[in-house]
């Protein structure tokens, strides 16, 4: 229709679409940076259906009109033999049951031949009209564009309906899917988008606890991110895990510019992309290639610290990871691409001697690198595998990695094997050949991303683990193992304020002292600890690692606990109820009703 009248009407009604974001508007202002509805949503299904059905419906109306009109005009005879014509009501009734092929017969009187002739015409017209309508509907349902429009609309409605905090995952490849699964188990809501429809289909087949809106759209388009709930106040974190650095950067950019208050975690495989991402606000940038080397360093320096990190950051269904003890000595790194060179650099930084092998004419011009295929016995022999302690198979080809491992084992069966696993389908082969330290990008991403979403304090704690030394980590492992066995501990945060732990907050506000050990011990047994281990205490900006039992608590302290569900329940109960608190801290029952409190006071 006319656009000028539309503009006029908009002005009249004070539509705010264009006028608000004027030049005087502050860039950081909350108003216009907040969610603007994505235009894709405006394509409502009902309008699409109506638009498509317009011709068949008009045809149907006309067919009925012609048939009914004809029936009222054609002369007939009533039961007395007098001339008779149908009324509109009778004609419409007849057409209603005839055109829908119900067929009650000739009502109210047997038809004359003239009427029968017209009925023949009417029936054929009606059949054509209905066939046309039904065919249009079927064709519309098969239409890709229409189905996509419906899918987008449903997705948007489901995202809008999410009332609780959710995590938006862009890119549900291996790492993204595992993250979605872990978050789902931990009770988080997830919205997933991916450019590949087949990955979204795979996601739809998984048995998640809660409904997970997922749609195949391109994350690089800011409007698609808004459609996926970036503008929603419930949007908690955005995780960009696509395999494309450019797309991840686009996501970081969109979030920084549209919703600076939402945390964003992005994966990247190059330092350059990481730098570009860091130019936008404070994204958490994770480079799996870089991290593998770091993990290896941690494991060499302190195996217990490595085990502790892996255990605390594992997804909830995993079991306790094994203790990995990479030896000190000379290492051989096969493959000197982005991955291999990062690992080699980290090993050298740890003070180890490293021999690298890479195929000729590849990315490096480092003269110390032995050129040639590491799968060839002669080339590998140059690296002196007999007096080496460990081998890293770091190429981007699983077949090469497996064959390097097999070849190297023939030289020296006692080599410590570190292998980069590229394809998840090859995992059984790596398990069969016996890898001591697997490096799986999807795993490491999960270990890095999960704690940052579910327990930000845990991320701080994990970052501090390597600096604490082997003995400290080993002691903590023993303490955790006592409570959790081989399962992955629950991780939760308790804040001593009126919303999280009102009973304890009141206790502290009353000026009564409280030591950490008093709330974590089992009532009646001072030595017995609840299955809840305090890992970190945060007071303002001050951080205390593994606070001791006699650590005094203050209002608004934040404590990170790990332990079992039982420990979590016990602590939550202690924090919420005055009765439970008094029972635990004072060792006596304090009446909760006003009258009984009066009695108790006069009695004591």
């Amino acid at each position, binding site marked *: *229709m*006319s*656009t*000028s*009248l*539309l503009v*006029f*009407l*908009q002005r009249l009604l004070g539509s705010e679409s264009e006028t608000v974001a004027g030049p005087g508007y502050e860039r950081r202002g909350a108003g216009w940076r907040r969610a603007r509805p994505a235009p894709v949503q*405006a394509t409502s299904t009902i*309008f*699409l259906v*109506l*638009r*498509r*059905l*317009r011709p068949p*419906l*008009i045809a149907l*109306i*006309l067919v009925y*009109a012609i048939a*009914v*009109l004809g029936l*009222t005009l054609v002369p007939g005879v009533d039961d007395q033999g007098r001339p008779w014509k149908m*009324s*509109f*009501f*009778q004609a419409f009734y007849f057409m209603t049951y005839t055109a829908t092929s119900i067929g009650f017969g000739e009502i109210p009187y047997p038809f004359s031949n003239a009427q029968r002739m017209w009925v023949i015409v009417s029936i054929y017209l009606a059949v054509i009209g209905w066939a046309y309508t039904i065919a249009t509907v079927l064709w519309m349902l098969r239409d890709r564009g229409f189905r996509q429009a419906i899918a987008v609309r449903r997705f948007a409605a489901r995202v809008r309906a999410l009332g609780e905090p959710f995590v938006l995952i862009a890119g549900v490849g291996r790492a993204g899917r595992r993250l979605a699964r872990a978050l789902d188990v931990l009770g988080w809501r997830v919205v997933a988008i991916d450019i590949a429809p087949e990955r979204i289909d795979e996601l739809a087949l998984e048995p998640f606890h809660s409904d997970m809106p997922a749609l195949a759209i391109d994350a690089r388009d800011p409007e698609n991110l808004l459609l996926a709930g970036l503008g929603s106040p419930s949007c908690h974190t955005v995780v960009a895990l696509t395999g494309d650095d450019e797309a991840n950067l686009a996501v970081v950019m969109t979030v920084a510019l549209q919703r600076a208050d939402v945390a964003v975690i992005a994966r990247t495989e190059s330092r350059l992309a990481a730098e570009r991402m860091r130019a936008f606000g404070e994204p958490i940038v994770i480079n799996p290639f870089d991290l593998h080397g770091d993990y290896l360093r941690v494991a060499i320096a302190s195996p217990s610290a490595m085990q502790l990190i892996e255990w605390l950051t594992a997804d909830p269904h995993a079991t306790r990871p094994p203790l990995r003890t990479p030896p000190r000595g000379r290492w051989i790194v096969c493959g000197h691409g982005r991955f291999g060179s990062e690992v080699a650099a980290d090993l050298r930084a740890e003070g180890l001697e490293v021999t690298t092998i890479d195929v000729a004419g590849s990315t490096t011009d480092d003269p110390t690198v032995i050129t040639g295929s590491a799968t060839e016995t002669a080339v590998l022999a140059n690296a002196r595998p007999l007096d080496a302690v460990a081998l890293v198979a770091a190429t981007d080809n699983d077949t090469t990695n497996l064959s390097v491992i097999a070849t190297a084992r023939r030289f020296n069966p006692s080599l410590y094997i570190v292998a980069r696993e590229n394809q998840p389908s090859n995992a059984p082969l790596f398990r069969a050949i016996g890898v001591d330290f697997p490096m799986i990008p999807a795993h490491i991403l999960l270990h890095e991303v999960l704690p940052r979403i579910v327990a930000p304090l845990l991320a701080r704690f994990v970052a501090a683990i390597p600096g604490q030394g082997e003995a400290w980590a080993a002691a903590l492992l023993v303490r955790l193992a006592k409570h959790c066995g081989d399962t992955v501990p629950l991780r939760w945060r308790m804040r001593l304020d009126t919303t999280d732990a009102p009973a304890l907050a009141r206790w502290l506000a009353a000026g009564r002292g409280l030591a950490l050990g008093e709330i974590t011990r089992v009532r009646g047994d001072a030595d017995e600890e609840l299955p809840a281990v305090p890992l970190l205490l945060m007071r303002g900006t001050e951080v205390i690692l593994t606070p001791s039992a006699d650590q005094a608590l203050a209002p608004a302290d934040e404590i990170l606990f790990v332990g079992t569900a039982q420990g979590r329940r016990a602590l939550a109960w202690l924090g919420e109820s005055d009765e439970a608190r008094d029972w635990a801290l004072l060792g006596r029952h304090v009446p909760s009703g006003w009258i009984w409190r009066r009695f108790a006071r006069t009695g004591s």
Partner: protein
Amino acid sequence: MNLEKVIFGFFVLLAASVNFGFVYGEIDNLAHHNEYELFAALVVSLVATMLKFGDRTQIGAVHLATSLVADLQLIAATVVWAYAAHVSAAGVTPQAMAGVVSLAIGALLANLVSVVMLVAETLSFQRR
């Protein structure tokens, strides 16, 4: 000249004029109101409604709304007439006729709004 606009304008105007033709006359006089005219008004109005489907603009939405109002009133008028003629014992009395016609007058009002909007739209288009 746009054929779609011609058809659209034709049906909107036809709906209003047929509707007017039906209601013109004494409100309770059977002889002044033709049943074929009411039938035509209803069919034309339904077709006009279909033509307005699927327009997502503000003005398109109002167009559709007026048409739906007209349809509703005309359907009510035909139902009243059919009831009076075939169900009620008294037949089509002047009272029943007055009811039918007054419903149709309501529909006429909605149709007139449609016509006014059509004219306003056309004029504002030409001014550009």
